[in-house]
């Protein structure tokens, strides 16, 4: 079933929508959640995803169901991850992803005093859009989807080391751009 038809089912409050979306995107959502959560939690997270879809469509009518689903998955999985962290339970690839991102940030948490979260989002959008195509895909796969280095290497026909190199250079560039834009002390 195509995405538009699935969305129509949601709008019609037809529970078949859940069946169809889980059939089509169940593996996708689980795979993405699994990069952030342990397996059992990822499975539970997927159930929450369908519920959130049900609660938000309508009124939302996603222009791209898969992208919308990806964002919901990422949000729910990351929220659950933080809850697990509070209980000191380990996450998956996300620990490495966060560690890498921490190298980009200034040492002190002073950004909010100057810029709000929305400005950071805007900045990040521009930064990513200006990356060369291949680097953009690599960067998004790593820091949006929390893909493993191996997965990215396979996807982009690169060696894992090369992916490391590219990511490192992009992070350095991001850090420089953050500093230039005043996202620092």
């Amino acid at each position, binding site marked *: 079933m195509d995405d538009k038809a699935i969305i129509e089912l949601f709008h019609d409050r037809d529970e078949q929508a859940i069946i169809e979306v889980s059939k089509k995107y*169940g*593996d*996708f959502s689980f*795979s993405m959640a699994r990069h952030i959560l342990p397996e059992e939690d990822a*499975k539970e997270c997927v159930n929450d995803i369908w519920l959130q879809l049900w609660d938000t469509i309508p009124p939302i009518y996603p*222009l*791209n169901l*898969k*992208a*919308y689903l*990806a*964002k919901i998955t*990422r*949000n729910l999985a*990351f929220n659950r991850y*933080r809850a697990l962290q509070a209980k000191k339970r380990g996450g998956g690839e*996300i620990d490495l*992803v*966060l*560690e890498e*991102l921490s190298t*980009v*940030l200034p040492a002190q*948490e002073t*950004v909010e005093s100057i810029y709000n*979260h929305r400005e*950071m*989002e*805007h900045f*990040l*959008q521009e930064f990513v*859009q200006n990356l*060369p*195509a*291949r680097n*953009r*895909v690599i960067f*998004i*796969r790593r*820091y*949006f*989807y929390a893909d493993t280095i*191996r*997965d990215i290497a*396979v*996807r*982009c*026909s*690169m*060696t*894992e*080391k*090369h992916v*490391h*190199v590219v990511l*490192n*250079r*992009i992070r350095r*560039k991001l850090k420089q751009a953050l500093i230039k834009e005043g*996202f620092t002390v």
Partner: protein
Amino acid sequence: MKKEELFESFNALPDKLLIESESTTQPSSKKTVWGILVVAMLSLTLTISAAATDFFHLSDQVFTITRWLPFSETGHNGIVEDDNLDASNPIILTLMSTDGLADSPEALANKEWQEYYNQYVSSHSADGKKWDTYAALAPYDYSYQVYNDEMSDKLEEIALKHSLKLMGKTQLIDNSRDHLGEYPVKELLLSTGAIHNQESWCSGRLFADGSIYYEGSFEYPYFGQYYILTISNKGTFKNRNFCFQSLEGFDEFSFTTKDGTLLSAAMNPNTRQALFVLDLPDSFVTLCFFDDTVQSDSFSYTAENLQSLICESFDWVAIQGLAGKSYDELKPAGVTDSSEINGKSDGFVWRNHPLDDLVTVE
């Protein structure tokens, strides 16, 4: 701002970018994408000739395969229903073996395996999740990516047909993580003089048959130039390839180093990639350069500049001295063997009994 908040900021990325990265195995970059590779040549001053060498034409060395979803995309229940990556929209990749010229047993085996493997994976993708589980138990190296006995049987059949040995359960020396603080393969290449320039990044492997795989990149004035050097000893099937999307725009030429080593080369100034090949009696050596800069203006891709880079950074006599050597001959002194075997190529382990890792199929 905390790292968690930065992570969350990615949620604001436009849908089109997410879809681009989701639906693309080969990003829409104009650059050719290279995969695992190859080669080596020699140093010193070089003389370029306009004609290709007698034995090497890039177009004669390649074959194509159809690329399907990687295992990691199959999820927990099997096939992902991704409209952009199904069988009706395959990705065609052009590969070249890093283990020998096209008519060599190594390259023929590689081609046969790649064709089988991609066809098998495309029709058995629901088995994908068995890959990790099986790899730990499989008799063969992780790099073959076999995940059941049927695939292992086929691997053995191909190796037997071409009279090649297979790599065993693990690779021998594998150090690509800088936090380990030691780089045995890099040290091997430096100590023998095979490479000169210090690289900011390095990754290397020494295989059970003495073959070497090494990735590096250069500092100033060649910052952003990334390379892979392979010295592949003949007689073993290692399943390694250069991978690129198109041969269009490649110029072929050859040149001779001061020591008289004749190198075959292919260079694409538009995609900023170059490949050098040296076919020796016991080894096949490849060296690939490609530009890795975010802003790719730092290094002009001309044959002359590549010559300079090669002269300053590699010693081809030393490289040839490494070719055909056994693991025991190459293993750097002072390296501590480890009895740990984790069965994964990224395990960074030193094995106690390297020859156990070569498997002759009978």
